[in-house]
Protein backbone atom coordinates (compact mmCIF):
# COMPACT_ATOMS: atom_id res chain seq x y z
CA UNK A 1 0.00 0.00 0.00
CA UNK A 2 1.25 3.47 -0.85
CA UNK A 3 2.34 5.08 2.42
CA UNK A 4 1.95 8.58 3.81
CA UNK A 5 5.24 10.44 3.59
CA UNK A 6 7.07 12.27 6.38
CA UNK A 7 9.23 15.02 4.95
CA UNK A 8 11.69 17.05 7.01
CA UNK A 9 12.29 20.44 5.43
CA UNK A 10 15.66 22.08 5.62
CA UNK A 11 15.51 25.82 5.07
CA UNK A 12 18.87 26.94 3.77
CA UNK A 13 20.55 30.31 4.14
CA UNK A 14 24.20 30.76 3.21
CA UNK A 15 24.62 26.99 3.07
CA UNK A 16 23.31 26.43 6.62
CA UNK A 17 19.99 25.10 7.87
CA UNK A 18 17.75 27.66 9.50
CA UNK A 19 14.13 27.78 10.57
CA UNK A 20 12.09 30.86 11.24
CA UNK A 21 8.92 31.43 13.16
CA UNK A 22 6.40 33.00 10.80
CA UNK A 23 9.18 33.47 8.28
CA UNK A 24 11.34 35.75 10.48
CA UNK A 25 13.81 35.35 13.40
CA UNK A 26 15.99 32.72 11.84
CA UNK A 27 17.85 30.24 14.05
CA UNK A 28 20.75 28.08 12.96
CA UNK A 29 19.93 24.37 12.97
CA UNK A 30 23.12 23.02 11.52
CA UNK A 31 24.75 21.62 8.44
CA UNK A 32 22.15 20.64 5.82
CA UNK A 33 24.02 17.65 4.44
CA UNK A 34 24.66 16.19 7.88
CA UNK A 35 21.07 16.79 8.95
CA UNK A 36 19.69 15.35 5.72
CA UNK A 37 21.71 12.16 6.08
CA UNK A 38 20.60 11.84 9.70
CA UNK A 39 16.94 12.16 8.72
CA UNK A 40 17.34 9.58 5.95
CA UNK A 41 18.90 7.15 8.42
CA UNK A 42 16.05 7.76 10.88
CA UNK A 43 13.42 6.87 8.29
CA UNK A 44 12.43 10.15 6.64
CA UNK A 45 10.67 9.41 3.34
CA UNK A 46 11.93 12.42 1.43
CA UNK A 47 13.70 15.69 2.11
CA UNK A 48 13.01 19.22 0.94
CA UNK A 49 15.75 21.86 0.78
CA UNK A 50 14.47 25.39 0.39
CA UNK A 51 16.84 28.25 -0.19
CA UNK A 52 14.55 30.63 1.65
CA UNK A 53 16.50 33.78 0.96
CA UNK A 54 16.97 33.04 -2.71
CA UNK A 55 14.02 34.94 -4.11
CA UNK A 56 14.61 38.13 -2.20
CA UNK A 57 18.34 38.29 -2.61
CA UNK A 58 18.19 37.04 -6.20
CA UNK A 59 20.57 34.21 -5.44
CA UNK A 60 20.58 30.82 -7.09
CA UNK A 61 20.46 27.74 -4.89
CA UNK A 62 23.94 26.42 -4.51
CA UNK A 63 24.46 23.57 -6.92
CA UNK A 64 27.43 22.36 -4.93
CA UNK A 65 25.23 21.80 -1.89
CA UNK A 66 22.85 19.77 -4.04
CA UNK A 67 25.71 17.57 -5.21
CA UNK A 68 26.89 16.95 -1.65
CA UNK A 69 23.35 15.99 -0.62
CA UNK A 70 22.92 13.72 -3.65
CA UNK A 71 26.12 11.89 -2.79
CA UNK A 72 25.23 11.29 0.83
CA UNK A 73 21.47 10.86 0.98
CA UNK A 74 19.76 7.64 -0.20
CA UNK A 75 16.19 8.96 -0.38
CA UNK A 76 14.60 11.42 -2.82
CA UNK A 77 14.95 15.15 -2.27
CA UNK A 78 13.43 18.32 -3.65
CA UNK A 79 15.22 21.63 -4.03
CA UNK A 80 13.50 25.00 -4.17
CA UNK A 81 14.12 28.69 -3.77
CA UNK A 82 14.54 31.33 -6.46
CA UNK A 83 13.99 28.96 -9.38
CA UNK A 84 12.69 30.87 -12.38
CA UNK A 85 13.78 29.11 -15.57
CA UNK A 86 14.24 25.80 -17.35
CA UNK A 87 17.99 26.38 -17.12
CA UNK A 88 17.85 26.82 -13.29
CA UNK A 89 16.09 23.48 -13.05
CA UNK A 90 18.39 21.75 -15.48
CA UNK A 91 21.39 22.72 -13.34
CA UNK A 92 19.80 21.41 -10.13
CA UNK A 93 18.67 18.12 -11.69
CA UNK A 94 22.08 17.63 -13.29
CA UNK A 95 23.63 18.08 -9.85
CA UNK A 96 21.45 15.30 -8.44
CA UNK A 97 18.17 16.82 -7.24
CA UNK A 98 15.17 14.52 -7.80
CA UNK A 99 12.54 17.23 -7.93
CA UNK A 100 12.45 20.99 -7.83
CA UNK A 101 9.86 23.31 -6.35
CA UNK A 102 8.76 26.58 -7.87
CA UNK A 103 6.73 29.28 -6.18
CA UNK A 104 6.83 33.02 -6.94
CA UNK A 105 8.31 32.74 -10.44
CA UNK A 106 5.61 30.25 -11.47
CA UNK A 107 2.89 32.57 -10.20
CA UNK A 108 4.38 35.54 -12.05
CA UNK A 109 4.74 33.52 -15.26
CA UNK A 110 2.51 30.40 -15.12
CA UNK A 111 3.87 29.15 -18.49
CA UNK A 112 7.01 28.17 -16.55
CA UNK A 113 5.18 25.16 -15.09
CA UNK A 114 4.29 23.83 -18.53
CA UNK A 115 7.82 24.41 -19.79
CA UNK A 116 9.29 22.48 -16.87
CA UNK A 117 6.78 19.63 -17.17
CA UNK A 118 7.45 19.30 -20.90
CA UNK A 119 11.21 19.32 -20.43
CA UNK A 120 11.61 17.19 -17.30
CA UNK A 121 8.22 15.57 -16.65
CA UNK A 122 5.51 16.52 -14.15
CA UNK A 123 6.93 14.06 -11.62
CA UNK A 124 9.77 16.43 -10.77
CA UNK A 125 7.76 19.66 -10.73
CA UNK A 126 6.49 20.58 -7.26
CA UNK A 127 4.45 23.76 -6.99
CA UNK A 128 4.92 25.43 -3.61
CA UNK A 129 2.15 27.73 -2.42
CA UNK A 130 2.35 29.98 0.62
CA UNK A 131 -1.18 30.78 1.62
CA UNK A 132 -2.95 32.83 4.29
CA UNK A 133 -6.51 32.73 5.55
CA UNK A 134 -7.90 36.26 5.26
CA UNK A 135 -10.70 37.88 7.20
CA UNK A 136 -13.14 37.21 4.36
CA UNK A 137 -12.76 33.51 5.15
CA UNK A 138 -10.84 32.55 2.02
CA UNK A 139 -7.26 31.41 1.48
CA UNK A 140 -5.06 33.63 -0.72
CA UNK A 141 -1.71 33.15 -2.41
CA UNK A 142 1.32 34.99 -1.01
CA UNK A 143 4.61 35.45 -2.84
CA UNK A 144 8.25 36.17 -2.00
CA UNK A 145 8.39 34.04 1.11
CA UNK A 146 5.11 35.38 2.40
CA UNK A 147 5.95 39.06 2.02
CA UNK A 148 3.74 39.89 -0.97
CA UNK A 149 -0.02 39.45 -0.90
CA UNK A 150 -2.09 38.63 -3.98
CA UNK A 151 -5.84 38.56 -4.57
CA UNK A 152 -5.67 35.07 -6.11
CA UNK A 153 -7.38 32.30 -4.20
CA UNK A 154 -5.13 29.42 -3.22
CA UNK A 155 -7.48 26.75 -4.59
CA UNK A 156 -7.78 28.53 -7.96
CA UNK A 157 -4.03 28.79 -8.36
CA UNK A 158 -3.47 25.17 -7.29
CA UNK A 159 -5.94 23.90 -9.88
CA UNK A 160 -4.47 26.03 -12.62
CA UNK A 161 -0.93 24.90 -11.76
CA UNK A 162 -1.91 21.24 -11.87
CA UNK A 163 -3.63 21.70 -15.22
CA UNK A 164 -0.39 23.27 -16.48
CA UNK A 165 1.62 20.25 -15.34
CA UNK A 166 2.59 20.55 -11.66
CA UNK A 167 3.05 17.02 -10.29
CA UNK A 168 2.67 17.80 -6.59
CA UNK A 169 1.52 20.70 -4.43
CA UNK A 170 3.51 21.79 -1.38
CA UNK A 171 1.03 23.81 0.62
CA UNK A 172 2.25 26.03 3.47
CA UNK A 173 -0.25 27.80 5.66
CA UNK A 174 1.28 31.05 6.88
CA UNK A 175 -1.33 31.21 9.64
CA UNK A 176 -0.03 27.93 11.00
CA UNK A 177 3.66 27.97 10.11
CA UNK A 178 5.84 28.13 13.20
CA UNK A 179 2.92 27.91 15.64
CA UNK A 180 3.17 24.16 16.41
CA UNK A 181 -0.61 24.29 16.83
CA UNK A 182 -1.46 21.82 14.07
CA UNK A 183 -1.67 21.84 10.27
CA UNK A 184 -4.27 23.82 8.31
CA UNK A 185 -6.81 21.02 7.93
CA UNK A 186 -9.44 22.94 5.97
CA UNK A 187 -7.40 24.17 3.00
CA UNK A 188 -5.24 21.02 2.96
CA UNK A 189 -8.38 18.88 2.87
CA UNK A 190 -9.96 20.99 0.14
CA UNK A 191 -6.93 20.66 -2.14
CA UNK A 192 -6.32 17.05 -1.27
CA UNK A 193 -9.88 16.05 -2.13
CA UNK A 194 -10.14 18.02 -5.35
CA UNK A 195 -6.68 17.76 -6.95
CA UNK A 196 -5.55 14.70 -8.95
CA UNK A 197 -1.97 15.04 -7.66
CA UNK A 198 -0.43 14.55 -4.18
CA UNK A 199 -0.63 17.34 -1.62
CA UNK A 200 2.16 17.90 0.90
CA UNK A 201 0.89 19.71 4.00
CA UNK A 202 3.26 22.17 5.63
CA UNK A 203 3.13 24.55 8.56
CA UNK A 204 2.00 23.97 12.12
CA UNK A 205 3.01 20.39 12.85
CA UNK A 206 3.93 20.32 16.52
CA UNK A 207 2.79 17.02 18.00
CA UNK A 208 2.41 13.41 16.88
CA UNK A 209 -1.36 13.83 16.82
CA UNK A 210 -1.12 16.78 14.41
CA UNK A 211 0.38 14.45 11.80
CA UNK A 212 -2.33 11.86 12.36
CA UNK A 213 -4.94 14.63 11.94
CA UNK A 214 -3.54 15.96 8.67
CA UNK A 215 -3.47 12.45 7.18
CA UNK A 216 -6.80 11.22 8.53
CA UNK A 217 -8.93 14.36 8.54
CA UNK A 218 -7.39 16.33 5.66
CA UNK A 219 -6.29 13.38 3.52
CA UNK A 220 -2.82 14.82 2.93
CA UNK A 221 -0.43 12.55 1.02
CA UNK A 222 2.62 13.81 2.87
CA UNK A 223 3.40 16.10 5.79
CA UNK A 224 6.36 18.40 6.03
CA UNK A 225 7.92 19.98 9.09
CA UNK A 226 11.21 21.57 10.03
CA UNK A 227 11.97 22.86 13.50
CA UNK A 228 10.33 20.06 15.45
CA UNK A 229 12.67 17.64 13.71
CA UNK A 230 15.73 19.92 13.84
CA UNK A 231 15.40 20.53 17.54
CA UNK A 232 14.47 16.90 18.24
CA UNK A 233 11.06 17.72 19.66
CA UNK A 234 9.60 14.94 17.49
CA UNK A 235 11.72 11.97 16.42
CA UNK A 236 10.85 10.37 13.09
CA UNK A 237 10.89 6.73 14.34
CA UNK A 238 8.56 7.69 17.19
CA UNK A 239 6.26 9.56 14.80
CA UNK A 240 6.05 6.58 12.44
CA UNK A 241 5.36 4.14 15.27
CA UNK A 242 2.57 6.45 16.47
CA UNK A 243 0.97 6.65 13.00
CA UNK A 244 1.34 2.90 12.48
CA UNK A 245 -0.47 2.24 15.75
CA UNK A 246 -3.33 4.34 14.38
CA UNK A 247 -3.37 2.22 11.19
CA UNK A 248 -2.14 5.07 9.04
CA UNK A 249 0.10 3.47 6.38
CA UNK A 250 3.74 4.48 6.85
CA UNK A 251 7.05 3.01 5.73
CA UNK A 252 8.71 1.29 8.68
Amino acid at each position, binding site marked *: *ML*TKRIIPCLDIKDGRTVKGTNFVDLRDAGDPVELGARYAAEGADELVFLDITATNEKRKTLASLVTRVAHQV*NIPFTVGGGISSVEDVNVLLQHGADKISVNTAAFRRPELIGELAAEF*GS*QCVVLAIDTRLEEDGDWYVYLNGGRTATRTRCADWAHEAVSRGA*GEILLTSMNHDGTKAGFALSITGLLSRTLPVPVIASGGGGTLQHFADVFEEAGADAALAASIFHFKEVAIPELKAFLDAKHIPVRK
Partner: protein
Amino acid sequence: MDIAIIKYNAGNIQSVLYALERIGATAQVTDDAELIRSADRVIFPGVGEAASAMQYLKERKLDLLIRELKQPVLGICLGMQLLCRHSEEGDTACLGVFDTTVKRFNTTLKVPQIGWNNVEALRGPLFEGVAENSYFYFVHSYYAALCADTIAETTYDIRFSSALSHGNFSGVQFHAEKSAAAGEQLLKNFIR
Protein backbone atom coordinates in the same frame (compact mmCIF):
# COMPACT_ATOMS: atom_id res chain seq x y z
CA MET B 1 33.75 -4.75 -12.12
CA ASP B 2 33.04 -2.55 -15.11
CA ILE B 3 29.60 -0.94 -14.87
CA ALA B 4 28.11 1.12 -17.68
CA ILE B 5 25.13 3.43 -17.15
CA ILE B 6 23.50 4.15 -20.49
CA LYS B 7 23.44 7.87 -21.20
CA TYR B 8 20.36 9.13 -23.00
CA ASN B 9 17.72 11.85 -22.67
CA ALA B 10 16.45 10.62 -19.30
CA GLY B 11 16.54 12.16 -15.87
CA ASN B 12 17.94 10.11 -13.01
CA ILE B 13 21.31 9.09 -14.40
CA GLN B 14 23.33 11.08 -11.87
CA SER B 15 21.35 9.60 -8.96
CA VAL B 16 22.15 6.07 -10.12
CA LEU B 17 25.84 6.93 -10.32
CA TYR B 18 25.84 8.36 -6.78
CA ALA B 19 23.93 5.37 -5.41
CA LEU B 20 26.53 3.01 -6.84
CA GLU B 21 29.28 5.13 -5.26
CA ARG B 22 27.55 4.82 -1.88
CA ILE B 23 27.79 1.03 -2.08
CA GLY B 24 31.43 1.25 -3.09
CA ALA B 25 31.10 0.79 -6.85
CA THR B 26 32.15 3.05 -9.67
CA ALA B 27 30.41 3.32 -13.01
CA GLN B 28 30.77 5.07 -16.31
CA VAL B 29 27.92 7.09 -17.79
CA THR B 30 28.21 6.54 -21.52
CA ASP B 31 26.44 6.21 -24.87
CA ASP B 32 29.53 4.66 -26.49
CA ALA B 33 28.53 1.34 -28.06
CA GLU B 34 31.85 -0.36 -27.40
CA LEU B 35 31.99 0.67 -23.74
CA ILE B 36 28.43 -0.52 -23.19
CA ARG B 37 29.00 -3.79 -25.02
CA SER B 38 32.18 -4.60 -23.08
CA ALA B 39 30.90 -3.67 -19.60
CA ASP B 40 30.34 -6.40 -16.98
CA ARG B 41 27.03 -4.84 -15.94
CA VAL B 42 24.76 -2.39 -17.73
CA ILE B 43 22.21 -0.13 -16.05
CA PHE B 44 19.48 1.37 -18.22
CA PRO B 45 18.04 4.17 -16.07
CA GLY B 46 15.36 6.67 -16.88
CA VAL B 47 12.83 9.25 -15.89
CA GLY B 48 11.05 10.70 -18.86
CA GLU B 49 8.60 10.06 -21.64
CA ALA B 50 8.54 6.75 -23.54
CA ALA B 51 8.08 7.96 -27.13
CA SER B 52 10.80 10.62 -27.05
CA ALA B 53 13.16 8.26 -25.23
CA MET B 54 12.69 5.49 -27.82
CA GLN B 55 13.14 8.02 -30.61
CA TYR B 56 16.42 9.17 -29.05
CA LEU B 57 17.66 5.58 -28.65
CA LYS B 58 16.75 4.69 -32.24
CA GLU B 59 18.51 7.73 -33.68
CA ARG B 60 21.71 6.53 -32.02
CA LYS B 61 21.05 2.84 -32.75
CA LEU B 62 21.12 2.19 -29.01
CA ASP B 63 17.83 0.27 -29.32
CA LEU B 64 19.45 -2.59 -31.22
CA LEU B 65 22.52 -2.48 -29.02
CA ILE B 66 20.54 -2.80 -25.78
CA ARG B 67 18.44 -5.70 -27.06
CA GLU B 68 21.54 -7.67 -28.00
CA LEU B 69 23.47 -7.24 -24.74
CA LYS B 70 24.61 -10.51 -23.17
CA GLN B 71 25.76 -9.37 -19.71
CA PRO B 72 23.35 -8.65 -16.81
CA VAL B 73 21.26 -5.55 -17.63
CA LEU B 74 19.09 -3.68 -15.13
CA GLY B 75 16.38 -1.30 -16.34
CA ILE B 76 15.11 1.24 -13.82
CA CYS B 77 11.69 2.96 -14.06
CA LEU B 78 11.35 4.17 -17.67
CA GLY B 79 14.33 1.92 -18.51
CA MET B 80 12.31 -1.07 -17.35
CA GLN B 81 9.22 0.07 -19.26
CA LEU B 82 11.22 0.50 -22.47
CA LEU B 83 12.35 -3.13 -22.15
CA CYS B 84 8.69 -4.22 -22.44
CA ARG B 85 6.87 -4.85 -25.75
CA HIS B 86 4.78 -1.73 -26.02
CA SER B 87 3.86 1.35 -24.01
CA GLU B 88 0.57 3.22 -24.08
CA GLU B 89 2.61 6.36 -23.43
CA GLY B 90 2.76 7.87 -26.90
CA ASP B 91 1.63 4.48 -28.32
CA THR B 92 5.27 3.44 -28.44
CA ALA B 93 6.76 0.18 -29.71
CA CYS B 94 9.45 -0.71 -27.17
CA LEU B 95 12.37 -3.14 -27.04
CA GLY B 96 10.37 -6.32 -26.46
CA VAL B 97 12.63 -8.07 -23.96
CA PHE B 98 9.90 -8.54 -21.34
CA ASP B 99 6.74 -10.15 -22.61
CA THR B 100 4.29 -7.55 -21.33
CA THR B 101 2.81 -4.17 -22.11
CA VAL B 102 2.90 -0.85 -20.28
CA LYS B 103 -0.41 0.81 -19.49
CA ARG B 104 -1.55 4.04 -17.90
CA PHE B 105 -3.09 3.81 -14.41
CA ASN B 106 -6.83 3.98 -14.85
CA THR B 107 -7.84 4.78 -11.28
CA THR B 108 -9.48 7.27 -8.98
CA LEU B 109 -6.23 7.31 -6.98
CA LYS B 110 -3.74 10.09 -7.64
CA VAL B 111 -1.55 9.71 -10.72
CA PRO B 112 1.44 9.63 -10.80
CA GLN B 113 1.86 7.24 -7.91
CA ILE B 114 4.48 9.08 -5.86
CA GLY B 115 6.02 7.59 -2.75
CA TRP B 116 6.92 4.40 -0.94
CA ASN B 117 4.93 1.25 -1.67
CA ASN B 118 5.53 -2.35 -0.62
CA VAL B 119 6.86 -4.98 -2.96
CA GLU B 120 5.56 -8.55 -2.69
CA ALA B 121 5.97 -12.05 -4.12
CA LEU B 122 9.72 -11.50 -4.48
CA ARG B 123 11.59 -14.05 -6.58
CA GLY B 124 15.12 -14.50 -7.81
CA PRO B 125 18.65 -13.36 -6.91
CA LEU B 126 17.93 -9.64 -7.37
CA PHE B 127 15.88 -9.71 -4.16
CA GLU B 128 18.23 -11.86 -2.10
CA GLY B 129 18.42 -10.37 1.40
CA VAL B 130 15.44 -8.09 0.69
CA ALA B 131 12.53 -8.87 3.01
CA GLU B 132 9.11 -9.64 1.54
CA ASN B 133 6.97 -6.47 1.64
CA SER B 134 9.96 -4.12 1.77
CA TYR B 135 9.19 -0.55 0.75
CA PHE B 136 10.65 1.01 -2.39
CA TYR B 137 10.24 4.50 -3.84
CA PHE B 138 7.94 4.80 -6.88
CA VAL B 139 7.21 7.71 -9.22
CA HIS B 140 5.18 6.66 -12.25
CA SER B 141 1.96 7.10 -14.20
CA TYR B 142 2.33 3.92 -16.28
CA TYR B 143 2.81 0.34 -15.13
CA ALA B 144 3.84 -3.01 -16.61
CA ALA B 145 1.09 -5.62 -16.49
CA LEU B 146 1.70 -8.89 -14.65
CA CYS B 147 3.23 -11.59 -16.86
CA ALA B 148 5.43 -14.69 -16.82
CA ASP B 149 8.52 -12.46 -16.41
CA THR B 150 7.18 -10.81 -13.23
CA ILE B 151 9.52 -11.25 -10.22
CA ALA B 152 7.88 -8.77 -7.83
CA GLU B 153 4.39 -7.34 -7.49
CA THR B 154 2.93 -4.15 -6.08
CA THR B 155 -0.62 -2.90 -5.70
CA TYR B 156 -1.81 0.59 -6.59
CA ASP B 157 -5.51 0.05 -7.13
CA ILE B 158 -4.50 -2.80 -9.47
CA ARG B 159 -1.65 -5.26 -9.01
CA PHE B 160 1.27 -4.70 -11.40
CA SER B 161 4.84 -5.84 -12.08
CA SER B 162 7.21 -3.92 -9.83
CA ALA B 163 10.10 -6.02 -11.14
CA LEU B 164 10.64 -8.19 -14.23
CA SER B 165 13.31 -10.62 -15.31
CA HIS B 166 14.00 -12.43 -18.57
CA GLY B 167 17.32 -14.12 -19.31
CA ASN B 168 20.13 -11.65 -18.57
CA PHE B 169 17.69 -8.73 -18.35
CA SER B 170 15.96 -7.48 -15.24
CA GLY B 171 14.01 -4.35 -14.56
CA VAL B 172 12.50 -2.53 -11.61
CA GLN B 173 9.68 0.00 -11.72
CA PHE B 174 10.77 1.65 -8.47
CA HIS B 175 13.82 3.83 -8.01
CA ALA B 176 16.27 1.44 -6.38
CA GLU B 177 18.81 4.27 -6.36
CA LYS B 178 16.52 6.30 -4.06
CA SER B 179 15.07 3.47 -1.96
CA ALA B 180 17.27 3.67 1.15
CA ALA B 181 18.66 0.36 2.51
CA ALA B 182 16.35 -1.91 0.48
CA GLY B 183 17.41 -0.24 -2.75
CA GLU B 184 21.08 -0.49 -1.83
CA GLN B 185 20.70 -4.22 -1.19
CA LEU B 186 19.11 -4.70 -4.60
CA LEU B 187 21.89 -2.77 -6.35
CA LYS B 188 24.49 -4.78 -4.44
CA ASN B 189 22.80 -7.97 -5.64
CA PHE B 190 22.88 -6.74 -9.22
CA ILE B 191 26.60 -5.93 -9.24
CA ARG B 192 27.63 -8.99 -7.21
